């Protein structure tokens, strides 16, 4: 996964990744918001958005993930999402309603913007979206960062060995790449 040697990667992957980032988010948000009316929900939307961002890491290397704000703050987003989901679940209790009472209620009129309706289940779905997105990006980013760290440690050790003892790099060079 970590692109340790960006020069080796085809330019096609890089331009493809760049081109696909925005559409992947548009699709994800559409799937999430339209989840109540069509196929998909916050969960799949979260994974799709995450795949769009992770593709950047795949094409440009782990450092690119550090650059993208949306990937840097992914773990935080995850817990913001958990907060949102918990709020939609428990706020109704404050109003004397049951857990997970959604507004507007059954057969009540919902404010809508075009075909988009403003209803609380969507807020819950946004929470799910953020949790899943944060998990995928945050988890893989953490793993990738650890891989890079290990590789750098190994490289540094090899560099030190080669400068102090004049050893060779060749024997272990295969270990780094996937």
């Amino acid at each position, binding site marked *: *996964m*970590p692109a340790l040697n960006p020069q080796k990667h085809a330019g096609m992957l890089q331009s493809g990744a760049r081109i696909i980032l925005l559409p992947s988010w548009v699709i994800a948000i559409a*799937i999430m918001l339209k*989840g*109540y*009316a*069509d*196929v*998909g*929900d*916050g*969960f*799949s939307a979260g*994974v*799709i958005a*995450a*795949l769009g961002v*992770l593709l950047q890491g795949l094409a440009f290397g782990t450092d690119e993930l550090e650059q993208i704000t949306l990937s840097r703050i992914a*773990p935080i987003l*995850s*817990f913001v*999402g*958990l907060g949102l*989901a*918990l709020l*939609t*679940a428990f706020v109704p209790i404050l109003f004397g309603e049951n*857990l*997970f009472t*959604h507004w*507007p*209620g*059954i*057969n009540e009129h*919902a404010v809508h913007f075009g075909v988009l*309706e403003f*209803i609380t*289940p*969507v807020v*819950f*779905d946004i*929470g*799910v979206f953020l*949790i*899943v997105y*944060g*998990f*995928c990006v*945050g*988890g*893989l980013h*953490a*793993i*990738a*960062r*650890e*891989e890079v760290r*290990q590789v750098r440690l190994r490289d540094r050790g090899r560099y030190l060995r080669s400068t102090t003892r004049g050893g060779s790099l060749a024997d272990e060079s295969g*270990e780094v790449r*996937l």
Partner: protein
Amino acid sequence: MMNPAMLLLVAAFAAPLVVSLLGAIRHSWVPRGAILMTGLAFAAAVWTCIQDDASVNVPWAPTWSMNFSLTLDGLAKMYALLATGIGFFVVLYASKYLALHLHHDHRLLEEQTRFFGFLLLFMASMVGLVMAQDLILIFVFWDLTAIASYFLIGFDRAEEESRSSAQMALLVTGITAIFVLLGALALFQIYGTFALPEIIIASNGGRNTGIAVGLIVLGALAKSAQVPMHFWLPRAMAAPTPVSAYLHSAAMVAAGVFLIGRVYPLVAQYDWMLDALLVIGFASMAVGGIIALTRRVLKQILAYSTISQYGYVVAMFGLGGEKGVAGATFYVLAHALVKSALFMTAGAVTEATGKKNLPDVGGLMRRMPLLAAGSGMAAAGLIALPLTIGFFKDELFFAAAYERGMTLAVMSVVGASLTLAYILRFWRQTFMGVLRTEPEPISGYLVWPVVVLGIASVVGGLWTVPAIWIVDRAASVSADAPIHLHIAYHLDARHENVMAIATWVAGLLIYLTRRIWWPAALGVAHLGSYFGPARLYYAGMRGLNQLSDSVHRIEVRDLRSRVATILMPAGLLVGLAVIVTPNSTSSFAVGALGRDDIPLITMLVASVVSAFVVIVVRDHFRLAISLSSVGFSLAGVYAFMGAPDVTLVALVVETVLSMFMIGMLVLMPRPILRFETEVRAERRYLRRDAIVAVVAAGMAFFVAWGALSRPSPSTEVIDSQTVLTAAVHGKDIVTVILADFRGFDTLGEVTVIALTLLGVISLLRTGRLR
């Protein structure tokens, strides 16, 4: 005005909270804050004591008929007074003692917060316990005292002895607490309520009730350190002295006899239970008394003495009748006053001289006259000399024993004379004779609580009205009938007096002839430590450790056994469920296959093929890829079954899962992966692996079969959900079910995801995964 019961509870539980908060701000305020808060709690106890009985009853879990019900009755008043009153003096004492203790051990003064926090929690849970009327509530407070005592006994956590003592106390009282819970549940089964007063009214004296009450009493006896569950108490001496003083007089150990007093109306219906109490009480008296005679460590003498003293109480409950109950209740009161004073004496002596053993101290009377006088009064109270409150505790004991015949009378005299002998030995060898170690001056905080409690013991002997007032009300609750205590000094040859004089003479004789019987008593003590129940405890602990170790060893030996430890129990449990589940009427049958099913079958075949590939390939990377192709083929199956929502989720999840798998593989050291690829399954494990595989596959098969065989959900449910979906502004029923109908399930699942992320990140960031 606030309800007195609620007021007392709030005052008691405010103490640990306030002290912990103070500790967070500035730890030097903690001792003074603790004194203030326990003082307030004591004041609240005194004030509520002179009020009428009061109750609080808040439905807690009404569907299970559990109520948060507290009643401040006579029994609760007495124990609450003891818990807060003795607690107050103990905290006064600890406010200086603990700083010295921490200083000796080169520890930070900040640890005071933890100590006083738990000490006050101990007090608060005692106050809660004595007022609780709901059996479950009693159990909760009961365990709270055990938890608080665990942290207090193990306060010197750097020392192995202190940790293992704390563990022993927690295990012995915690495991037996389960009996209390079992008894409570059994009573609930019989009477349909957890409310103790209702159970007492409704009780029928049946055999099942007897067993349930017996279980509760068993828990109580362990808490009161009665034979054969006494061995934890002497070990609990590892605690700092104020804890011991409190634990032995007004808290932990007292909680046991309190519970017996609380359920005594039920206990008294069963003669066999009373007889058992009698036997256990006298056995504890003898064991505690004999071993106390042989101990050399100051605090250990007192610890064994406690076992023996509570033996008196239990025996008196066993004797029963008006005299027995009144005597037991009175005994607890008198004992609490003097025993806490004696413990604090031992602590003060050790602080002043630096010696813990009796032979190393002596002749302290001249150097520490105030302490000698205070503890002398307390000791006189414990050995029941006239003009102290203790005199009456033995008078009541003798009277109750005499009623039941000569044998018990003689036994009680012997027991009491043992007490006299070891307390005489304790006090005389500490304060009289040759000066062995020159004491250093100590703070008045370590002396005055002893003096005040000693004076209280004498005042109680001269002016008996308050004690009678308290005990009358407390004993009336235990006996479930009005009790009026008659205690006074009589200068005649009534049998109580004769027995008292016999006790003093016999006790003095035992003390004077100690060189003769010393080896015999020591032999008994050794015998106890070799063949006693403590041995059973250690053997049990060792066995548990070995069991856990061997299971662990099997589990971590290799990946196969780790997988087997998960799959085998799961498979066996599912198999058991299949066997015990009654046969469903409509078991699943494979229907006819048509031409339309060809795409579906193609995808199924693809997933089966990739599943077989998983078995064949050895390289980890290919393994990951073939695993995900199983997933992708299944996504195709969903697609052909007309489930677009599930298909979408399966596709995206499978993609990201493959990335995770490969990412993790990259993290693993390459040589290990290479080695694992080379390694072949050992021949001798082949059969085992086959069994595991068959069991696990059988489990999966039965689960799938069972799910398919279930009667399909009635169309009504589906219809109503479809209608509702439109009503709640939805058009996609899957999303509506996830976010609305079964929203709580989804919430649980996504919470797990978020917590897993937290785990992954914290593991990787702290660099533990390397």
